[in-house]
Protein backbone atom coordinates (compact mmCIF):
# COMPACT_ATOMS: atom_id res chain seq x y z
CA UNK A 1 0.00 0.00 0.00
CA UNK A 2 1.19 3.51 -0.73
CA UNK A 3 1.48 6.03 2.06
CA UNK A 4 -0.19 8.88 0.23
CA UNK A 5 -2.75 10.42 2.64
CA UNK A 6 -6.35 10.12 1.47
CA UNK A 7 -7.54 12.24 4.35
CA UNK A 8 -5.59 14.76 6.30
CA UNK A 9 -7.23 16.60 9.18
CA UNK A 10 -5.29 19.19 11.15
CA UNK A 11 -6.64 20.90 14.28
CA UNK A 12 -10.23 20.74 13.13
CA UNK A 13 -12.81 22.52 15.25
CA UNK A 14 -16.54 22.57 14.70
CA UNK A 15 -18.72 24.85 16.78
CA UNK A 16 -22.51 24.86 16.52
CA UNK A 17 -24.65 27.74 17.60
CA UNK A 18 -27.68 26.23 19.35
CA UNK A 19 -29.76 29.32 20.13
CA UNK A 20 -27.52 31.30 22.48
CA UNK A 21 -25.39 28.30 23.47
CA UNK A 22 -22.19 27.39 21.64
CA UNK A 23 -21.66 23.68 21.27
CA UNK A 24 -18.10 22.58 20.60
CA UNK A 25 -18.62 19.33 18.71
CA UNK A 26 -14.98 19.01 17.65
CA UNK A 27 -12.29 20.77 19.65
CA UNK A 28 -9.12 20.26 17.63
CA UNK A 29 -8.97 16.90 15.91
CA UNK A 30 -5.91 15.64 14.02
CA UNK A 31 -6.15 12.56 11.82
CA UNK A 32 -4.21 11.17 8.87
CA UNK A 33 -5.67 8.36 6.85
CA UNK A 34 -3.75 6.64 4.10
CA UNK A 35 -5.03 4.65 1.20
CA UNK A 36 -6.23 1.14 2.01
CA UNK A 37 -6.90 1.72 5.69
CA UNK A 38 -9.92 0.33 7.54
CA UNK A 39 -10.63 2.58 10.50
CA UNK A 40 -13.27 2.42 13.19
CA UNK A 41 -14.24 5.57 14.97
CA UNK A 42 -15.77 4.87 18.36
CA UNK A 43 -17.02 6.86 21.28
CA UNK A 44 -20.07 7.64 23.39
CA UNK A 45 -22.97 9.55 21.91
CA UNK A 46 -22.32 13.26 21.74
CA UNK A 47 -18.55 12.73 21.40
CA UNK A 48 -18.46 14.28 17.92
CA UNK A 49 -18.42 11.07 15.81
CA UNK A 50 -21.22 12.21 13.54
CA UNK A 51 -19.79 15.69 13.14
CA UNK A 52 -16.44 14.18 12.18
CA UNK A 53 -18.19 11.89 9.70
CA UNK A 54 -20.04 14.84 8.14
CA UNK A 55 -16.83 16.78 7.75
CA UNK A 56 -14.98 13.76 6.32
CA UNK A 57 -17.92 13.25 3.95
CA UNK A 58 -17.88 16.89 2.81
CA UNK A 59 -21.44 17.36 4.02
CA UNK A 60 -20.25 20.01 6.46
CA UNK A 61 -17.32 22.40 6.76
CA UNK A 62 -15.16 22.83 9.84
CA UNK A 63 -15.33 26.08 11.80
CA UNK A 64 -11.54 26.12 11.73
CA UNK A 65 -8.68 23.83 10.83
CA UNK A 66 -7.57 22.07 7.68
CA UNK A 67 -9.39 19.22 5.97
CA UNK A 68 -7.81 17.71 2.89
CA UNK A 69 -9.22 14.92 0.82
CA UNK A 70 -6.88 13.68 -1.86
CA UNK A 71 -4.82 16.79 -1.07
CA UNK A 72 -7.69 19.18 -1.80
CA UNK A 73 -8.60 21.58 1.00
CA UNK A 74 -12.36 21.22 1.28
CA UNK A 75 -12.90 24.11 3.68
CA UNK A 76 -12.32 26.49 0.78
CA UNK A 77 -14.80 24.86 -1.59
CA UNK A 78 -18.29 26.14 -2.34
CA UNK A 79 -21.45 24.00 -2.13
CA UNK A 80 -21.30 22.79 -5.72
CA UNK A 81 -17.62 21.87 -5.50
CA UNK A 82 -18.35 19.98 -2.28
CA UNK A 83 -21.16 18.15 -4.08
CA UNK A 84 -18.68 17.15 -6.74
CA UNK A 85 -16.23 15.82 -4.12
CA UNK A 86 -19.06 13.87 -2.44
CA UNK A 87 -19.98 12.44 -5.79
CA UNK A 88 -16.51 11.41 -6.95
CA UNK A 89 -14.36 10.94 -3.86
CA UNK A 90 -16.70 9.82 -1.09
CA UNK A 91 -19.12 6.93 -0.73
CA UNK A 92 -21.70 6.90 2.05
CA UNK A 93 -23.19 3.92 3.85
CA UNK A 94 -25.84 4.85 6.41
CA UNK A 95 -27.31 3.08 9.40
CA UNK A 96 -30.81 3.32 7.83
CA UNK A 97 -29.51 2.44 4.33
CA UNK A 98 -31.08 5.59 2.83
CA UNK A 99 -32.08 3.99 -0.43
CA UNK A 100 -34.75 5.82 -2.46
CA UNK A 101 -37.88 3.70 -1.99
CA UNK A 102 -39.41 4.43 -5.42
CA UNK A 103 -36.32 3.25 -7.29
CA UNK A 104 -35.19 -0.32 -7.92
CA UNK A 105 -31.91 -1.64 -6.48
CA UNK A 106 -30.04 -1.03 -9.71
CA UNK A 107 -31.48 2.48 -10.11
CA UNK A 108 -30.34 3.29 -6.58
CA UNK A 109 -26.83 2.11 -7.43
CA UNK A 110 -26.92 4.25 -10.59
CA UNK A 111 -27.78 7.48 -8.76
CA UNK A 112 -24.19 8.68 -8.11
CA UNK A 113 -23.37 7.82 -11.74
CA UNK A 114 -26.29 9.97 -12.94
CA UNK A 115 -24.97 12.94 -10.97
CA UNK A 116 -21.52 12.22 -12.39
CA UNK A 117 -23.03 12.66 -15.86
CA UNK A 118 -22.43 9.12 -17.03
CA UNK A 119 -24.55 7.88 -19.92
CA UNK A 120 -27.22 5.23 -19.43
CA UNK A 121 -25.53 2.25 -21.05
CA UNK A 122 -22.27 2.77 -19.23
CA UNK A 123 -23.86 3.35 -15.84
CA UNK A 124 -26.23 0.39 -16.19
CA UNK A 125 -23.22 -1.83 -16.94
CA UNK A 126 -21.29 -0.41 -13.98
CA UNK A 127 -24.27 -0.78 -11.62
CA UNK A 128 -24.86 -4.35 -12.75
CA UNK A 129 -21.22 -5.16 -12.06
CA UNK A 130 -21.41 -3.57 -8.59
CA UNK A 131 -24.59 -5.44 -7.68
CA UNK A 132 -22.95 -8.68 -8.75
CA UNK A 133 -19.96 -7.82 -6.58
CA UNK A 134 -22.18 -7.49 -3.48
CA UNK A 135 -24.02 -10.68 -4.47
CA UNK A 136 -27.32 -9.12 -5.51
CA UNK A 137 -27.26 -9.48 -9.30
CA UNK A 138 -30.58 -11.32 -9.30
CA UNK A 139 -32.28 -8.67 -7.10
CA UNK A 140 -31.41 -5.77 -9.41
CA UNK A 141 -35.00 -4.89 -10.28
CA UNK A 142 -36.43 -5.20 -6.77
CA UNK A 143 -37.39 -2.16 -4.79
CA UNK A 144 -35.91 -1.58 -1.31
CA UNK A 145 -39.23 -2.62 0.27
CA UNK A 146 -38.75 -6.05 -1.32
CA UNK A 147 -35.26 -6.48 0.11
CA UNK A 148 -34.14 -7.58 3.56
CA UNK A 149 -32.12 -5.23 5.75
CA UNK A 150 -28.87 -6.99 4.89
CA UNK A 151 -29.68 -6.89 1.18
CA UNK A 152 -30.60 -3.19 1.39
CA UNK A 153 -27.30 -2.42 3.08
CA UNK A 154 -25.44 -4.31 0.37
CA UNK A 155 -27.25 -2.22 -2.27
CA UNK A 156 -26.18 0.87 -0.35
CA UNK A 157 -22.57 -0.38 -0.32
CA UNK A 158 -22.73 -1.00 -4.07
CA UNK A 159 -24.04 2.56 -4.46
CA UNK A 160 -21.23 3.98 -2.31
CA UNK A 161 -18.68 2.37 -4.62
CA UNK A 162 -20.26 3.55 -7.86
CA UNK A 163 -17.77 6.28 -8.71
CA UNK A 164 -14.69 4.47 -7.33
CA UNK A 165 -14.41 6.84 -4.36
CA UNK A 166 -11.19 7.54 -2.47
CA UNK A 167 -12.93 6.63 0.77
CA UNK A 168 -16.12 4.98 1.94
CA UNK A 169 -17.77 6.34 5.09
CA UNK A 170 -20.04 3.99 6.98
CA UNK A 171 -22.15 5.39 9.80
CA UNK A 172 -23.22 2.54 12.12
CA UNK A 173 -23.61 0.26 9.07
CA UNK A 174 -24.76 -2.70 11.17
CA UNK A 175 -26.89 -0.69 13.60
CA UNK A 176 -30.19 -1.69 12.01
CA UNK A 177 -29.24 -5.29 11.22
CA UNK A 178 -29.45 -8.59 13.06
CA UNK A 179 -26.08 -10.03 14.08
CA UNK A 180 -25.91 -12.48 11.16
CA UNK A 181 -26.59 -9.80 8.52
CA UNK A 182 -24.26 -7.47 10.42
CA UNK A 183 -21.48 -10.04 10.26
CA UNK A 184 -22.06 -10.45 6.52
CA UNK A 185 -21.77 -6.70 6.00
CA UNK A 186 -18.53 -6.55 7.98
CA UNK A 187 -17.24 -9.49 5.96
CA UNK A 188 -18.09 -7.61 2.77
CA UNK A 189 -16.29 -4.54 4.10
CA UNK A 190 -13.21 -6.62 4.78
CA UNK A 191 -13.29 -8.02 1.25
CA UNK A 192 -13.60 -4.54 -0.17
CA UNK A 193 -10.76 -3.33 2.02
CA UNK A 194 -8.63 -6.23 0.78
CA UNK A 195 -9.26 -4.91 -2.74
CA UNK A 196 -7.90 -1.54 -1.67
CA UNK A 197 -11.01 0.41 -0.67
CA UNK A 198 -10.34 2.88 2.12
CA UNK A 199 -13.01 2.47 4.80
CA UNK A 200 -13.97 4.67 7.71
CA UNK A 201 -16.65 3.24 9.96
CA UNK A 202 -18.40 4.86 12.88
CA UNK A 203 -19.70 2.38 15.42
CA UNK A 204 -20.40 2.06 19.11
CA UNK A 205 -20.14 -1.76 18.98
CA UNK A 206 -16.73 -2.84 20.28
CA UNK A 207 -16.94 -6.22 18.54
CA UNK A 208 -17.58 -4.57 15.19
CA UNK A 209 -14.87 -2.02 15.87
CA UNK A 210 -12.38 -4.79 16.56
CA UNK A 211 -12.86 -6.10 13.01
CA UNK A 212 -11.15 -3.04 11.55
CA UNK A 213 -7.41 -2.41 11.34
CA UNK A 214 -7.24 0.81 13.27
CA UNK A 215 -9.37 2.08 16.11
CA UNK A 216 -9.85 5.76 16.86
CA UNK A 217 -11.66 6.78 20.04
CA UNK A 218 -13.31 10.16 20.43
CA UNK A 219 -14.45 11.80 23.62
CA UNK A 220 -15.85 15.30 24.08
CA UNK A 221 -14.71 16.38 20.64
CA UNK A 222 -11.14 15.15 20.96
CA UNK A 223 -9.31 11.98 19.89
CA UNK A 224 -8.36 10.13 23.07
CA UNK A 225 -6.76 7.08 21.48
CA UNK A 226 -5.64 5.94 18.03
CA UNK A 227 -4.39 2.33 17.82
CA UNK A 228 -3.46 -0.10 15.12
CA UNK A 229 -5.22 -3.31 16.11
CA UNK A 230 -4.34 -5.72 13.32
Amino acid sequence: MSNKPVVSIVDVKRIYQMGTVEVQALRGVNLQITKGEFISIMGPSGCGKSTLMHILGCLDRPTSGLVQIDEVDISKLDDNELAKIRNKKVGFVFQTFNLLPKLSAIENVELPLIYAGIKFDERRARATELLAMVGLAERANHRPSELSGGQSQRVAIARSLANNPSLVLADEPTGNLDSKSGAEIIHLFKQLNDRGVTLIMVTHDQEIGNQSKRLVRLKDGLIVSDDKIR
Partner: protein
Amino acid sequence: MINTLEPLNIAFKSLAGNKLRSLLTTMGVIIGVAAVITLVSMGEGAKSYIMNQVGSWGMGSNSITVQPGSGDATVPELTLTLSDATALRQKVNNLQYLMPEFVGRGEMVFGKKKYQPSFTMGVSADYPFAYKQAAVEGRFFSAADEAGRKHLVVIGKTIVKNLFGNYSPVGETIKLNGSGFIVIGVLEEKGTMLSYDMDDMALIPSTLSESVLKTNKIWEMFITVNNETQVPQAMAEIRQILLERHKKEDFHMHNQQGLIDIINNILNALTGIVSAIAAISLLVGGIGIMNIMLVAVTERTREIGIRKAIGAKQFDIFLQFVFESVLITMTGAIVGIIIGTLAAWGIMTALKMPAVIAWGAVYIACFVAFLVGTFFGVYPAMQAARMNPVDALRFEA
Protein backbone atom coordinates in the same frame (compact mmCIF):
# COMPACT_ATOMS: atom_id res chain seq x y z
CA MET B 1 -22.02 18.14 -15.81
CA ILE B 2 -25.22 16.18 -15.44
CA ASN B 3 -27.30 15.66 -18.54
CA THR B 4 -30.40 17.95 -18.43
CA LEU B 5 -32.62 15.07 -19.45
CA GLU B 6 -31.76 13.26 -16.21
CA PRO B 7 -33.65 15.60 -13.84
CA LEU B 8 -36.58 15.35 -16.26
CA ASN B 9 -36.39 11.58 -16.05
CA ILE B 10 -36.11 11.74 -12.24
CA ALA B 11 -39.08 14.11 -12.09
CA PHE B 12 -41.11 11.84 -14.32
CA LYS B 13 -40.32 8.81 -12.17
CA SER B 14 -41.32 10.49 -8.94
CA LEU B 15 -44.60 11.69 -10.47
CA ALA B 16 -45.29 8.22 -11.82
CA GLY B 17 -44.58 6.85 -8.34
CA ASN B 18 -47.35 9.04 -6.92
CA LYS B 19 -50.06 8.62 -9.54
CA LEU B 20 -53.17 9.63 -7.59
CA ARG B 21 -51.59 12.75 -6.15
CA SER B 22 -50.14 13.72 -9.54
CA LEU B 23 -53.57 13.29 -11.15
CA LEU B 24 -55.35 15.34 -8.49
CA THR B 25 -52.72 18.07 -8.71
CA THR B 26 -53.06 18.15 -12.48
CA MET B 27 -56.85 18.34 -12.26
CA GLY B 28 -56.92 22.09 -11.64
CA VAL B 29 -54.95 22.69 -14.81
CA ILE B 30 -56.92 20.12 -16.82
CA ILE B 31 -60.26 21.70 -15.90
CA GLY B 32 -59.02 25.23 -16.50
CA VAL B 33 -57.49 24.47 -19.89
CA ALA B 34 -60.38 22.25 -21.01
CA ALA B 35 -62.85 25.01 -20.14
CA VAL B 36 -60.94 27.63 -22.12
CA ILE B 37 -60.44 25.41 -25.13
CA THR B 38 -64.10 24.36 -25.16
CA LEU B 39 -65.42 27.90 -24.88
CA VAL B 40 -62.94 29.49 -27.27
CA SER B 41 -63.43 26.71 -29.84
CA MET B 42 -67.19 27.11 -29.55
CA GLY B 43 -66.80 30.86 -29.94
CA GLU B 44 -64.68 30.41 -33.06
CA GLY B 45 -67.18 27.90 -34.43
CA ALA B 46 -70.08 30.26 -33.77
CA LYS B 47 -68.12 33.09 -35.37
CA SER B 48 -67.47 31.14 -38.54
CA TYR B 49 -71.12 30.01 -38.58
CA ILE B 50 -72.38 33.59 -38.27
CA MET B 51 -69.91 34.87 -40.87
CA ASN B 52 -71.04 32.13 -43.23
CA GLN B 53 -74.66 33.06 -42.69
CA VAL B 54 -73.85 36.70 -43.36
CA GLY B 55 -72.02 35.65 -46.51
CA SER B 56 -74.82 33.37 -47.72
CA TRP B 57 -77.37 36.15 -47.36
CA GLY B 58 -75.61 37.83 -50.24
CA MET B 59 -73.79 40.45 -48.25
CA GLY B 60 -70.57 41.27 -49.97
CA SER B 61 -67.78 43.65 -49.14
CA ASN B 62 -69.16 46.01 -51.82
CA SER B 63 -72.62 46.17 -50.27
CA ILE B 64 -74.46 48.78 -48.22
CA THR B 65 -77.67 48.20 -46.33
CA VAL B 66 -79.98 51.19 -45.79
CA GLN B 67 -82.61 50.83 -43.09
CA PRO B 68 -85.33 53.15 -41.84
CA GLY B 69 -85.11 54.67 -38.37
CA SER B 70 -82.14 56.06 -36.46
CA GLY B 71 -80.56 52.69 -35.88
CA ASP B 72 -81.08 52.54 -32.13
CA ALA B 73 -82.75 49.55 -30.60
CA THR B 74 -86.33 50.82 -30.84
CA VAL B 75 -88.79 49.51 -33.44
CA PRO B 76 -88.22 51.85 -36.38
CA GLU B 77 -90.87 53.93 -38.11
CA LEU B 78 -90.74 52.93 -41.77
CA THR B 79 -89.61 56.07 -43.54
CA LEU B 80 -88.15 54.92 -46.84
CA THR B 81 -90.31 54.74 -49.98
CA LEU B 82 -90.09 53.53 -53.54
CA SER B 83 -89.42 57.07 -54.73
CA ASP B 84 -86.39 57.19 -52.42
CA ALA B 85 -85.18 54.01 -54.09
CA THR B 86 -85.78 55.47 -57.55
CA ALA B 87 -83.91 58.67 -56.63
CA LEU B 88 -80.90 56.67 -55.34
CA ARG B 89 -80.87 54.56 -58.48
CA GLN B 90 -80.69 57.71 -60.61
CA LYS B 91 -78.15 59.67 -58.56
CA VAL B 92 -75.67 57.38 -56.77
CA ASN B 93 -72.43 56.95 -58.71
CA ASN B 94 -70.93 53.52 -59.42
CA LEU B 95 -74.19 51.87 -58.42
CA GLN B 96 -74.32 48.18 -59.32
CA TYR B 97 -77.54 46.83 -57.83
CA LEU B 98 -80.31 48.39 -55.78
CA MET B 99 -82.75 46.13 -54.07
CA PRO B 100 -85.57 47.57 -51.96
CA GLU B 101 -87.58 45.10 -49.88
CA PHE B 102 -91.27 45.62 -49.26
CA VAL B 103 -92.52 43.04 -46.81
CA GLY B 104 -96.18 42.12 -46.67
CA ARG B 105 -98.63 39.27 -46.25
CA GLY B 106 -99.63 37.17 -49.21
CA GLU B 107 -102.64 34.87 -49.46
CA MET B 108 -102.11 32.52 -52.40
CA VAL B 109 -104.81 30.52 -54.09
CA PHE B 110 -104.26 27.95 -56.82
CA GLY B 111 -107.30 25.96 -57.81
CA LYS B 112 -108.75 24.88 -54.49
CA LYS B 113 -105.49 25.15 -52.59
CA LYS B 114 -104.72 28.07 -50.35
CA TYR B 115 -101.33 28.90 -48.91
CA GLN B 116 -99.70 31.72 -47.01
CA PRO B 117 -95.92 31.80 -47.32
CA SER B 118 -93.67 33.12 -44.54
CA PHE B 119 -92.34 35.88 -46.76
CA THR B 120 -94.10 37.76 -49.54
CA MET B 121 -91.95 40.60 -50.71
CA GLY B 122 -91.85 43.29 -53.34
CA VAL B 123 -88.32 43.46 -54.74
CA SER B 124 -86.47 44.91 -57.73
CA ALA B 125 -85.29 42.98 -60.78
CA ASP B 126 -81.79 43.17 -59.26
CA TYR B 127 -82.77 40.55 -56.69
CA PRO B 128 -81.12 37.48 -58.28
CA PHE B 129 -77.84 39.37 -58.72
CA ALA B 130 -77.82 41.27 -55.45
CA TYR B 131 -78.72 38.23 -53.33
CA LYS B 132 -77.04 35.67 -55.59
CA GLN B 133 -80.20 33.60 -55.82
CA ALA B 134 -81.27 32.84 -59.38
CA ALA B 135 -84.45 31.33 -60.76
CA VAL B 136 -83.67 27.67 -61.47
CA GLU B 137 -86.86 27.10 -63.43
CA GLY B 138 -88.40 29.76 -65.68
CA ARG B 139 -86.90 33.23 -65.13
CA PHE B 140 -86.83 36.20 -62.79
CA PHE B 141 -88.85 39.27 -63.76
CA SER B 142 -86.93 41.95 -65.63
CA ALA B 143 -86.52 45.67 -64.99
CA ALA B 144 -88.99 46.23 -67.83
CA ASP B 145 -91.49 43.88 -66.14
CA GLU B 146 -90.97 45.83 -62.94
CA ALA B 147 -91.43 49.22 -64.58
CA GLY B 148 -94.45 47.89 -66.50
CA ARG B 149 -96.06 46.66 -63.25
CA LYS B 150 -96.49 43.16 -64.71
CA HIS B 151 -98.31 40.74 -62.42
CA LEU B 152 -95.52 38.19 -62.22
CA VAL B 153 -94.38 36.17 -59.21
CA VAL B 154 -91.25 34.11 -58.50
CA ILE B 155 -91.68 31.50 -55.76
CA GLY B 156 -89.51 29.32 -53.57
CA LYS B 157 -89.50 25.51 -53.44
CA THR B 158 -91.53 25.28 -50.24
CA ILE B 159 -94.41 27.15 -51.88
CA VAL B 160 -94.11 24.93 -54.97
CA LYS B 161 -94.39 21.86 -52.77
CA ASN B 162 -97.42 23.20 -50.88
CA LEU B 163 -99.34 24.63 -53.79
CA PHE B 164 -98.36 22.49 -56.79
CA GLY B 165 -96.93 19.29 -55.39
CA ASN B 166 -94.85 17.67 -58.07
CA TYR B 167 -96.07 19.82 -60.99
CA SER B 168 -93.92 22.48 -62.51
CA PRO B 169 -95.64 25.75 -61.58
CA VAL B 170 -94.04 27.88 -64.28
CA GLY B 171 -96.71 29.46 -66.47
CA GLU B 172 -99.55 28.74 -64.05
CA THR B 173 -101.76 31.57 -62.83
CA ILE B 174 -102.40 31.96 -59.11
CA LYS B 175 -104.31 34.53 -57.06
CA LEU B 176 -102.21 36.59 -54.71
CA ASN B 177 -104.24 38.72 -52.29
CA GLY B 178 -107.09 38.49 -54.77
CA SER B 179 -105.33 39.54 -57.99
CA GLY B 180 -104.09 37.22 -60.71
CA PHE B 181 -100.32 36.55 -61.00
CA ILE B 182 -98.40 34.39 -63.44
CA VAL B 183 -95.70 32.21 -61.85
CA ILE B 184 -92.65 32.89 -64.07
CA GLY B 185 -89.91 31.27 -62.03
CA VAL B 186 -88.86 29.05 -59.14
CA LEU B 187 -86.05 30.24 -56.87
CA GLU B 188 -82.89 28.31 -56.26
CA GLU B 189 -83.06 26.46 -52.95
CA LYS B 190 -81.53 28.32 -50.00
CA GLY B 191 -82.39 26.17 -47.00
CA THR B 192 -82.88 27.62 -43.56
CA MET B 193 -81.13 30.55 -42.00
CA LEU B 194 -81.38 31.22 -38.28
CA SER B 195 -84.26 28.73 -38.34
CA TYR B 196 -86.25 30.62 -41.02
CA ASP B 197 -87.21 28.64 -44.13
CA MET B 198 -85.74 30.84 -46.87
CA ASP B 199 -87.52 28.81 -49.56
CA ASP B 200 -90.95 29.74 -48.21
CA MET B 201 -90.81 33.02 -50.10
CA ALA B 202 -92.70 34.72 -52.94
CA LEU B 203 -91.28 37.73 -54.80
CA ILE B 204 -93.23 40.25 -56.88
CA PRO B 205 -92.11 43.50 -58.63
CA SER B 206 -91.54 46.30 -56.10
CA THR B 207 -93.86 48.54 -58.13
CA LEU B 208 -96.83 46.35 -57.14
CA SER B 209 -96.12 46.50 -53.39
CA GLU B 210 -98.55 49.29 -52.69
CA SER B 211 -101.48 47.82 -54.64
CA VAL B 212 -100.98 44.13 -53.76
CA LEU B 213 -99.08 44.05 -50.43
CA LYS B 214 -100.72 47.22 -49.12
CA THR B 215 -97.42 48.78 -48.17
CA ASN B 216 -95.43 51.60 -49.73
CA LYS B 217 -92.73 51.54 -47.06
CA ILE B 218 -89.37 49.91 -47.57
CA TRP B 219 -88.30 47.44 -44.88
CA GLU B 220 -84.70 47.63 -45.95
CA MET B 221 -82.70 48.54 -49.03
CA PHE B 222 -79.73 46.54 -50.24
CA ILE B 223 -77.30 48.38 -52.48
CA THR B 224 -74.07 47.29 -54.10
CA VAL B 225 -71.44 49.36 -55.84
CA ASN B 226 -68.98 48.23 -58.49
CA ASN B 227 -66.16 47.64 -56.06
CA GLU B 228 -65.57 47.86 -52.35
CA THR B 229 -63.33 50.93 -52.47
CA GLN B 230 -66.36 52.91 -53.64
CA VAL B 231 -68.40 51.97 -50.54
CA PRO B 232 -67.52 55.01 -48.37
CA GLN B 233 -68.22 57.48 -51.19
CA ALA B 234 -71.49 55.77 -52.08
CA MET B 235 -72.56 55.86 -48.42
CA ALA B 236 -71.87 59.59 -48.32
CA GLU B 237 -73.91 60.14 -51.49
CA ILE B 238 -76.81 58.03 -50.22
CA ARG B 239 -76.84 59.98 -47.00
CA GLN B 240 -76.83 63.32 -48.80
CA ILE B 241 -79.61 62.33 -51.21
CA LEU B 242 -81.84 60.94 -48.47
CA LEU B 243 -81.20 63.94 -46.19
CA GLU B 244 -82.24 66.28 -49.03
CA ARG B 245 -85.43 64.32 -49.52
CA HIS B 246 -86.32 63.71 -45.85
CA LYS B 247 -84.85 66.87 -44.24
CA LYS B 248 -83.82 64.73 -41.25
CA GLU B 249 -81.77 61.65 -40.55
CA ASP B 250 -84.61 59.13 -40.20
CA PHE B 251 -82.58 56.32 -41.75
CA HIS B 252 -79.28 54.59 -41.10
CA MET B 253 -76.95 52.37 -43.04
CA HIS B 254 -74.18 49.93 -42.55
CA ASN B 255 -71.88 47.91 -44.73
CA GLN B 256 -70.58 44.39 -44.33
CA GLN B 257 -67.43 45.54 -42.63
CA GLY B 258 -69.52 47.37 -40.03
CA LEU B 259 -71.56 44.24 -39.37
CA ILE B 260 -68.48 42.05 -39.15
CA ASP B 261 -66.89 44.59 -36.80
CA ILE B 262 -69.92 44.47 -34.54
CA ILE B 263 -70.01 40.65 -34.46
CA ASN B 264 -66.28 40.50 -33.90
CA ASN B 265 -66.47 43.02 -31.08
CA ILE B 266 -69.14 41.00 -29.32
CA LEU B 267 -67.33 37.69 -29.77
CA ASN B 268 -63.99 39.19 -28.78
CA ALA B 269 -65.53 40.61 -25.63
CA LEU B 270 -66.93 37.18 -24.81
CA THR B 271 -63.56 35.57 -25.49
CA GLY B 272 -61.96 38.15 -23.23
CA ILE B 273 -64.31 37.31 -20.38
CA VAL B 274 -63.74 33.59 -20.89
CA SER B 275 -59.98 34.12 -20.92
CA ALA B 276 -60.17 36.08 -17.68
CA ILE B 277 -62.09 33.24 -16.03
CA ALA B 278 -59.55 30.79 -17.42
CA ALA B 279 -56.70 32.88 -16.11
CA ILE B 280 -58.26 32.74 -12.65
CA SER B 281 -58.73 28.97 -12.84
CA LEU B 282 -55.13 28.49 -13.98
CA LEU B 283 -53.96 30.74 -11.16
CA VAL B 284 -55.92 28.64 -8.67
CA GLY B 285 -54.50 25.50 -10.29
CA GLY B 286 -51.01 26.98 -10.05
CA ILE B 287 -51.41 27.78 -6.36
CA GLY B 288 -52.60 24.20 -5.84
CA ILE B 289 -49.48 22.95 -7.58
CA MET B 290 -47.24 25.17 -5.48
CA ASN B 291 -48.95 23.94 -2.32
CA ILE B 292 -48.45 20.31 -3.30
CA MET B 293 -44.87 20.96 -4.34
CA LEU B 294 -44.12 22.55 -0.96
CA VAL B 295 -45.60 19.52 0.79
CA ALA B 296 -43.60 17.26 -1.50
CA VAL B 297 -40.38 19.10 -0.73
CA THR B 298 -40.93 18.75 3.03
CA GLU B 299 -42.02 15.16 2.68
CA ARG B 300 -39.00 14.30 0.58
CA THR B 301 -36.46 16.14 2.69
CA ARG B 302 -34.67 12.87 3.34
CA GLU B 303 -34.61 12.03 -0.37
CA ILE B 304 -33.10 15.44 -1.02
CA GLY B 305 -30.51 14.77 1.69
CA ILE B 306 -29.61 11.40 0.16
CA ARG B 307 -29.34 12.86 -3.33
CA LYS B 308 -27.10 15.64 -2.04
CA ALA B 309 -24.96 13.20 -0.05
CA ILE B 310 -24.23 11.18 -3.17
CA GLY B 311 -23.36 14.22 -5.23
CA ALA B 312 -26.47 16.09 -6.46
CA LYS B 313 -25.70 19.78 -6.86
CA GLN B 314 -28.17 22.50 -5.85
CA PHE B 315 -29.07 23.05 -9.47
CA ASP B 316 -29.76 19.33 -10.02
CA ILE B 317 -32.26 19.32 -7.14
CA PHE B 318 -33.75 22.61 -8.33
CA LEU B 319 -34.25 21.27 -11.84
CA GLN B 320 -35.80 18.04 -10.56
CA PHE B 321 -38.52 19.91 -8.67
CA VAL B 322 -39.13 22.55 -11.34
CA PHE B 323 -39.45 19.81 -13.94
CA GLU B 324 -41.97 18.00 -11.74
CA SER B 325 -44.07 21.13 -11.56
CA VAL B 326 -43.74 21.85 -15.29
CA LEU B 327 -44.51 18.23 -16.15
CA ILE B 328 -47.67 18.37 -14.05
CA THR B 329 -48.91 21.54 -15.74
CA MET B 330 -47.89 20.55 -19.25
CA THR B 331 -49.56 17.16 -18.90
CA GLY B 332 -52.61 18.96 -17.55
CA ALA B 333 -52.55 21.37 -20.48
CA ILE B 334 -52.31 18.59 -23.07
CA VAL B 335 -55.06 16.52 -21.45
CA GLY B 336 -57.15 19.68 -21.07
CA ILE B 337 -56.67 20.56 -24.74
CA ILE B 338 -57.77 17.09 -25.82
CA ILE B 339 -60.81 17.09 -23.52
CA GLY B 340 -61.70 20.68 -24.43
CA THR B 341 -61.43 20.05 -28.18
CA LEU B 342 -63.53 16.89 -27.95
CA ALA B 343 -66.13 18.67 -25.81
CA ALA B 344 -66.32 21.62 -28.21
CA TRP B 345 -66.58 19.26 -31.17
CA GLY B 346 -69.36 17.29 -29.46
CA ILE B 347 -71.36 20.34 -28.46
CA MET B 348 -70.99 22.08 -31.84
CA THR B 349 -71.93 18.90 -33.70
CA ALA B 350 -75.02 18.57 -31.52
CA LEU B 351 -75.88 22.21 -32.33
CA LYS B 352 -75.25 21.55 -36.04
CA MET B 353 -72.59 24.23 -36.15
CA PRO B 354 -69.06 23.90 -37.47
CA ALA B 355 -66.43 22.80 -34.94
CA VAL B 356 -63.28 24.87 -35.17
CA ILE B 357 -60.07 24.03 -33.31
CA ALA B 358 -58.94 27.28 -31.73
CA TRP B 359 -55.21 26.86 -32.40
CA GLY B 360 -54.46 30.26 -30.93
CA ALA B 361 -56.04 29.16 -27.64
CA VAL B 362 -54.17 25.85 -27.80
CA TYR B 363 -50.79 27.58 -28.12
CA ILE B 364 -51.64 30.10 -25.44
CA ALA B 365 -52.88 27.37 -23.07
CA CYS B 366 -49.61 25.44 -23.51
CA PHE B 367 -47.55 28.56 -23.00
CA VAL B 368 -49.52 29.74 -19.95
CA ALA B 369 -49.40 26.25 -18.41
CA PHE B 370 -45.64 26.24 -18.90
CA LEU B 371 -45.37 29.65 -17.24
CA VAL B 372 -47.65 28.64 -14.36
CA GLY B 373 -45.70 25.41 -13.83
CA THR B 374 -42.39 27.23 -13.85
CA PHE B 375 -43.54 30.16 -11.76
CA PHE B 376 -45.22 28.11 -9.05
CA GLY B 377 -42.50 25.45 -9.14
CA VAL B 378 -39.54 27.76 -8.67
CA TYR B 379 -40.12 28.65 -5.02
CA PRO B 380 -40.56 25.07 -3.75
CA ALA B 381 -37.63 23.96 -5.92
CA MET B 382 -35.44 26.67 -4.40
CA GLN B 383 -36.45 25.51 -0.93
CA ALA B 384 -35.40 22.00 -1.91
CA ALA B 385 -32.14 23.06 -3.54
CA ARG B 386 -31.04 25.15 -0.56
CA MET B 387 -31.50 22.42 2.03
CA ASN B 388 -28.52 21.65 4.18
CA PRO B 389 -27.62 18.00 3.47
CA VAL B 390 -26.78 17.18 7.10
CA ASP B 391 -30.16 18.47 8.35
CA ALA B 392 -31.96 16.86 5.43
CA LEU B 393 -30.42 13.46 6.20
CA ARG B 394 -31.46 13.70 9.84
CA PHE B 395 -35.06 14.50 8.88
CA GLU B 396 -37.58 11.93 10.03
CA ALA B 397 -40.73 11.85 7.90
